[in-house]
Structures are given as C-alpha cells and as structure tokens.
C-alpha cells in the first residue's frame, strides 16, 4: 500500500508518504490507523485521536470501516480547511 499523510498528520509523523505491505490482521482503515499508532512516537501522536482522522482511498473519501486492498493508495489527514 502507498500511504500519504497531510497537514499535522504529516508533520507529526515526519514524512509525507511511505510504502508498506498490508500488515497482518489489518482489514479496514480503522485497523490501519490503530496499527500505525503503534509504530513510534510521531505516529502515536498523529493518531492519538482516531476520530479526528479523515481518510481517502485512491483519492475518494471513505469511512473508517472501509476495507483495504493491498494495492490501495491510502491518504490520512485532518478535516480539510480550504477555500
């Protein structure tokens, strides 16, 4: 999977993107966020409140119960503030 991070998710993790293999036991976006939160201090801070995280799969918004595919582009970010 290709992971993309934006805004304070990006700055807290310290990177804008990375490639990972779909982890064992991770089925949904919510599972992925919980998994990432365990990867270190920056991740733990970025994903401390999962309900504030928005997700897009292959550039479409999805809910946290959306089921992931191994080849998905997954973006994780705070609520948008454009315009």
């Amino acid at each position: 999977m290709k992971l993309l991070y934006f805004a304070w998710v990006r700055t807290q993790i310290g990177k804008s993107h990375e490639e990972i293999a779909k982890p064992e036991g991770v089925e949904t976006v919510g599972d992925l966020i919980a998994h990432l939160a365990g990867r270190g201090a920056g991740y733990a801070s970025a994903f401390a409140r999962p309900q504030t995280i928005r997700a897009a799969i292959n550039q479409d918004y999805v809910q946290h119960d959306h089921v992931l595919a191994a080849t998905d582009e997954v973006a994780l970010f705070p609520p948008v503030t454009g315009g």
Partner: protein
Amino acid sequence: MIRITAEPFDPSRELASFGQDPAIGAIATFIGQVRDEHGGGNLMALTLEHYPGMTERKLAELEDDARARWDLSQVLIVHRHGRMEVGETIVLVATASGHRQAALEACQFLIDRLKTDAPFWKLEETKAGNHWVEAKTSDDTAADRWRQ
C-alpha cells in the same frame, strides 16, 4: 474549468474572457483572500497544502454536480496552494448562466462544498508561531444544505 496553481493570480485576469457569450445574462463570482484576522489579528502568512490529483478530481466532481443541478454556461474554479500573504487571493469561483438564480445558487454551492470536499489544509504563520487551522462546524452546516 478547474485550475490549481502555486503562483499568485489576479481574479480580473482569470475572468477577462469569462461570460462572453450572447446567451449569458448572469455572472456570479466569489473570491476568498487572506485576511489578517485568520491568526487572531496578527497573521503574517498562510500556507495551503493540498493533495495533488485528488484536489483536481474533487473540484471537477463539484463542477459536474453544479452543472447537473443548474443550467450553467460556464464554470471556473481557480485555487491557490503554497505560501501566501495577507490580501492574496486563495480561491476564485465563477458561474455564468442565462438566469441569475442559477448563477448565484451554483456559486454559493461550489464554495460551500469546496470548503468541505476539496483536500486543502491551511497553516497559519503568526508571531506566536505556526498552527494548522481547525475545520469549522459552520462549514459542514453550509455544505449540508446542498445535500438535502
């Protein structure tokens, strides 16, 4: 038409040939620009981050939605990203139609939905430091009107 740009842009230049069609009777525009109160009165600059690819896609979807709901002759959305200072234009939305209510409602629809649907994030630079802008409930409420 959708345009995403990292360069400053002048709304009057973007609109120079907009609406020039004998069937067009009404043009509505909205301009959002950086104001000093974003950062509590001491904003120095604003940086807009976005999700390249998804941004263009979401704005094109919004244009399609607007064209499906109203009889529009022309639609233009120009959105800036990157770092900008007070007074610089962030976003321009323009709609043209034979009729005024179509142009006005579609313009309002586009900016309301852009606020909640387009993947942009604002970082404010103030004397007290930098911080990410929080999303506003009022923006969700404004966008939700159009989902009824």
